[in-house]
């Protein structure tokens, strides 16, 4: 029985990853063309799509989403590329790496709130500069947050995608021989950045490509960051979509489905444009290579990349600090840099309302993470049994939930749950989260699992230990740190999920994240501070547990330290 379980791993994982997307897309595309028998739609029609196109500013909304996706990806990838090119292998690099890595676990919404609290006209930056530099005694009447071109939204996305792409690049870096390629390029007289771009970047980018695509898809369809920082007249497509989806009028579902289909097209168009940009970039690199230009004076570029990296990291950190201050702020007048008094009043007042969303957050995160870990372990055990490591196709499955825009398939999935009676139930919500938690858990656990020295297992088997005993008493304990870190990653991903919670929870299951985003329009900074701070605290607590528990359990085992 036990030995049969791993066999189930890969098919179950594929079902978890692709099932919701397949059903969800069907549940989106069919109603978009008028087919939804439960609501009386039995024929196919283009009426809903036509109605969608007559909405005011719909093209503008789509364009903002498209542009946000491309600009976010180009800027964050550019910063990561130049930073690695200029600094990989230096002390500064490893220090920045340690600064940036934890930022990956900060939920998007919390980072977006932090940025808003920094750059708003009455935000931290304005306070720091006022009145001595700006002369402002009152917050200026400027539209910085929610600016119509979406710049602050793009900034909010960039500071979160930089840590993601940096970590993906770092994971792929050992597979390209950076030090020797660099030495070779340098011996030919190439500058650091040029040598990197010609020798290291093409194979490195190939490894990162799916993750970059995921950034394009995410940034074109993000809801929470867009609702907090994005323009409002008109709002980015995904934000308007969710408004239609939450409309109690049932006939709006056809219309919302047509919108979701448009979102799918926008994200697909962004991906196609991105692929064209990839070609263009590759052609430019080829031309440069043929020219033989050395670009030896690149110190300015390296410094600029470092500055961009540090700015991105400090922005998130300063934003989080500002959130924390607001949550404890008493009277805080503009332009004071700090509140006159600190008080726990906001926390005490909010506490009773926190219990319900907090417990849903914890239950769903714990359940989806546990399932994801179990499924991942089964898949990896199956890999060992067959001797075949999951290849490119498996990787595509893993990235599927990150490549298909959430707004495009979750609405259809919600419909499915509505008609099967599962909507707003905990199991449905756990399942929806699992789809997004699974890829991150698998990606973070598979490398340490595969790097494990399997001779330990041969030894245990030689000692007469059964496979299950070997797994439980040798391999899992030895990999406990990696498993706990993967669990912390999964936990953080679940805590940060906004759209799946809103749609599958259908407003009846609230988490800290959905509550926080719902507060965005209200503008009570103290309460937002409490929610966003909690949002950041939960993943941090997860990582603290993942680090401290093995350190404590194995405190007398030197070889178990990292």
């Amino acid at each position, binding site marked *: 029985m036990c030995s049969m379980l791993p066999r189930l791993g890969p098919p179950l994982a594929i079902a978890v990853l692709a099932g919701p997307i397949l059903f969800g897309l069907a549940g989106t595309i069919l109603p978009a063309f008028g087919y939804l028998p439960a609501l009386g739609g039995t024929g196919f029609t283009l009426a809903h799509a036509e109605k969608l196109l007559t909405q005011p500013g719909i093209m503008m909304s789509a364009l903002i989403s498209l542009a946000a996706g491309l600009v976010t990806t180009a800027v964050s990838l550019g910063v990561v590329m130049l930073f690695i090119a200029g600094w990989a292998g230096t002390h500064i690099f490893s220090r920045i790496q340690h600064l940036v890595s934890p930022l990956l676990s900060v939920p998007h919404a919390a980072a977006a709130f932090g940025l808003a609290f920094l750059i708003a006209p009455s935000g931290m930056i304005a306070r720091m500069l006022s009145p001595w530099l700006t002369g402002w005694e009152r917050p200026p009447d400027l539209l910085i947050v929610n600016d119509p071109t979406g710049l602050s939204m793009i900034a909010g996305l960039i500071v979160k995608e930089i840590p993601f792409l940096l970590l993906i690049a770092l994971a792929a870096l050992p597979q390209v021989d950076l030090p020797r390629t660099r030495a070779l390029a340098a011996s030919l007289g190439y500058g650091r950045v040029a040598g990197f771009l010609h020798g290291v970047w093409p194979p490195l980018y190939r490894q990162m490509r799916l993750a970059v695509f995921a950034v394009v898809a995410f940034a074109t369809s993000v809801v929470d960051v867009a609702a907090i920082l994005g323009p409002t007249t008109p709002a980015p497509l995904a934000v308007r979509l969710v408004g239609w989806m939450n409309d109690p009028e049932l006939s709006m579902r056809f219309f919302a489905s047509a919108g979701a289909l448009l979102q799918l097209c926008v994200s697909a168009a962004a991906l196609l444009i991105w692929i064209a940009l990839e070609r263009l970039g590759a052609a430019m690199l080829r031309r440069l290579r043929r020219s033989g230009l050395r670009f030896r004076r690149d110190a300015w570029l390296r410094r600029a990349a470092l500055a961009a990296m540090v700015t991105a990291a400090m922005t998130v950190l300063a934003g989080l600090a500002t959130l924390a201050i607001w949550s404890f702020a008493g009277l805080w007048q503009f332009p004071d840099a700090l509140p006159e008094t600190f008080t726990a009043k906001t926390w005490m007042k909010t506490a009773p309302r926190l219990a319900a969303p907090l417990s849903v957050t914890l239950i769903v995160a714990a359940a989806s993470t546990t399932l994801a870990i179990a499924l991942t372990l089964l898949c990896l055990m199956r890999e060992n*049994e*067959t*001797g075949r490591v999951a290849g490119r196709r498996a990787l595509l499955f893993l990235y599927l939930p990150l490549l298909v825009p959430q707004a495009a398939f979750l609405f259809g999935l919600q419909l499915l749950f509505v008609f099967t009676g599962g909507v707003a139930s905990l199991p449905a919500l756990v399942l929806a989260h699992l789809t997004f938690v699974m890829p991150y858990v698998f990606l973070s656990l598979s490398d340490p699992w595969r790097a494990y*020295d*399997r*001779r*330990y*297992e*041969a*030894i*245990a*088997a*030689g*000692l*007469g*230990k*059964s*496979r299950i005993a*070997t797994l439980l*008493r*040798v391999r899992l*304990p*030895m990999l*406990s740190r990696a498993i706990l870190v993967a669990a912390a990653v999964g936990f953080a991903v679940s805590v940060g999920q906004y759209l799946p919670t809103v749609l599958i929870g259908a407003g009846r299951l609230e988490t800290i994240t959905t509550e926080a985003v719902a507060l965005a329009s209200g503008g009570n900074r103290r309460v937002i501070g409490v929610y966003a701070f909690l949002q950041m605290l939960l993943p941090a607590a997860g990582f603290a547990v993942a680090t401290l528990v093995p350190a404590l359990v*194995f405190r*007398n*085992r*030197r*070889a*178990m330290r990292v």
Partner: protein
Amino acid sequence: MADKQLFLDGVSIALNARVLVAVTHRVEVGEVLTVMGPSGSGKSTLLAYIGGFLDPAFSASGKVFSGKEEITALPAEERHAGILFQDPLLFPHMSVGGNLLFAIPPAVKGKAARLALVEEALDGVGLAGTASRDPDTLSGGQKARVALARVLLSAPRMLLLDEPFSKLDAELRSQMRELVFAKARTSRLPVVLVTHDEADAEAAGGRVIRVGQ
């Protein structure tokens, strides 16, 4: 006890239709069969086949007998093929004593009896009183001896040695070699040794098979 001899009957291991190792040989208890070959010749796959953990990428045929019992189809954990690699591979999350307790068959009941066996085994390799130590704090030679004590405690039917001396320095190497072969003789175990070191083969004194040449 004479029935624990190891018989390799027409064992042949191939990778992509290229035969790496082919052997038919009877290894008596206390005797050492040495398989010599350069690294990458696939000589270790023979041990993996006997032990039951051959990578599925290889194809293999032939029978393995321990005494009168054919073990070819048994799962690795039922073959009782004790193995030593070139690294001691002590389980890093257990103490020295924990490593040894893990190896003692469940048939030995009672905490006191099991702990007594641990102490005796440690004493037998000159490491009395180290049971509570963290294995990573031992020297390389001490780790190798704990690994030997561990495999012997599991009451194996044979000993498979995968270049177990190659990472030790010259002086330790000959000491360890003598210790391992002596223990194999007193425990009456057939031994298969894989190595690329002629001195190992000489010290082993048994039949030598050369592969990959």
